[in-house]
């Protein structure tokens, strides 16, 4: 089972796969591997030769002090980094065994296969709740009943359906911050990605909403490979299976979350997770 990225059109096989994928059956997840990945802003080397695997159906947390390149690394995975003028990427990102940066790959297909949730909830301000979630599927031509079903499914997956089902036509920005972030998660999974990237998804939220997002992450990993950037050490410890620690653009250490937090190999990791610098 591979993900086709080179074209907009789906093959029947793919459609079938997506159909099964969208149903209740649990799909086998997809692995993302970074091979000697480097990223620049103009001359600034922000990510330095990172090798890292994100395991299928696992939550991987990326931690590290501010400015160490976590967001940049994340944005390289779905090729959003290149949207900033003057940036450059070297090395490889593989989704299963497809190289995402090869010439034959369609960047829009990459982004549909690898969804993203941003730090600040950013629903489209002029759109209703429904339209926010429908925006993605509409891009690939989903309409009518299929669309409604897809929106409902995404909102259910994002644990938001019961709260909004009676006001789908009201503006998305009328929701609370936590609800908006879940709306954004619904929007990200509405295009049925294989991988979901989250850049500090709860840092703008109150503790209760944060917990809901963490519970949601726990549920979502049954269907997606999840990468989550966080500043919150407890959050990383609670929500992730694997943790990667970055410092100054380099990957210092990655391993099972428990190990990273209790007996890391590197002394710098130890200092960071015990709060000695940051």
């Amino acid at each position, binding site marked *: 089972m591979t993900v086709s990225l080179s074209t907009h059109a789906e093959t029947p096989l793919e459609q079938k796969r997506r159909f099964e994928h969208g149903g209740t059956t649990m799909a086998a997840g997809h692995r993302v591997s970074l091979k000697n990945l480097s990223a620049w802003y103009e001359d600034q080397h922000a990510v330095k030769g990172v090798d890292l695997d994100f395991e299928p159906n696992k939550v991987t947390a990326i931690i590290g002090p501010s400015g160490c390149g976590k967001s940049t690394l994340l944005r390289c995975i779905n090729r959003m980094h290149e949207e900033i003028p003057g940036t450059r990427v070297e090395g490889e990102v593989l989704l299963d065994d497809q190289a995402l940066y090869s010439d034959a790959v369609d960047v829009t297909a*990459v982004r549909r296969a690898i969804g993203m949730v941003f730090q600040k909830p950013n629903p489209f301000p002029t759109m209703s709740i429904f339209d926010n979630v429908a925006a993605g599927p509409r891009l690939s031509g989903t309409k009518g009943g299929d669309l409604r079903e897809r929106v409902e499914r995404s909102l259910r997956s994002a644990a938001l359906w019961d709260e909004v089902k009676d006001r789908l036509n009201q503006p998305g920005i009328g929701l609370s911050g936590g609800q908006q972030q879940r709306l954004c998660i619904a929007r990200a999974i509405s295009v049925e990605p294989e991988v979901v990237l989250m850049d500090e998804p709860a840092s703008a939220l109150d503790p209760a909403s944060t917990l809901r997002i963490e519970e949601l992450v726990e549920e979502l990993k049954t269907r997606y490979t999840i990468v989550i950037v966080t500043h919150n050490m407890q959050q990383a410890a609670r929500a992730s299976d694997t943790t990667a620690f970055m410092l100054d653009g380099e990957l210092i250490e990655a391993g099972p979350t428990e190990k990273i937090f209790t007996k890391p190999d590197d002394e710098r990791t130890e200092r960071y997770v015990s709060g000695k610098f940051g």
Partner: protein
Amino acid sequence: MAASAAAISQSGSLRGSPLSRLPDRALRIVLTALAVAILTLIAFFFIRLYVEARPAFARFGVFGFTFNNDWDVSRNVFGALPLVVGTLITAAVALIIGVPVAIAAALFVTELCPRRARGPLTIMLDLLAAVPSVVYGLWGVFVLIPKLKPAEQWVTDKLHFIPFIGGASVAGPNYFIGGLILAIMILPIVSAITREVMATVPADHKEAALALGATRWEMIRTAILPYSRAGITGAAMLGLGRAIGETIAVTLVIGNAPRIGSHLFDQGYTLAAVIANEFGEAANNPIHRAALIAAGLVLFVLTLLVNAAARVFINRRTALA
């Protein structure tokens, strides 16, 4: 709170001397005076125009003057409908052609063109606004009218089934040419405002669209255009205001025929053009003069209405953001 405020006002060093507050007070008085002066001026304009136009309104009625389809100087009959219609047609053509081009230009400059070309392109677009309108008019007369005539004839022949556009025999100067000149003239202002509005679209929304797998055009459609729609409408309204009021360029290319043209490529007249053309000869004919001033008043009201509409749209936009 209250205690500390009292302490501050008691401590001599923090109390401002009356002298130090003087510049502030002076500034406020001057600005208030200016604001009042502007409002007074507008009110005065309006009243003065009305007084001067009274003879025309008395003879033909306000309604009759504005909506009678008969403007004949030799018979001293003045109904401004042909001029109102001409004004509206040319302004509509200007919007239909100018606004999409302005939006496209703004999109190109903000989203598509290489960053290095952005500055020069913006300056060139803005420079269009610096060309004197008489130059546009002359260019219309000597270049657009002769060069476009065959093309216009071709279009009207091909579209013969559409009323008002098809099946015409093209007059040199006509509504369409007038509208086209106006479209070029409103381009800089509409494009500049649209550009500003688009620059305020948060990067968050653009990235959200791109991260869903939107192409550049789809990103523009899902993130940029909905967010800027109200602002663009406001920009179009301001352009419309300018198109309605523009005088000399239109006078040169409209044909100056005081009747309602039978099709888009027919000669016509506009309110502003009639005033510019006939004011000299009207000096010795009080009713003609009054009619021209009444035409000015109609133009004034039309422009005010358009600007008020623009304001409503722009306010709604700020309420949204």
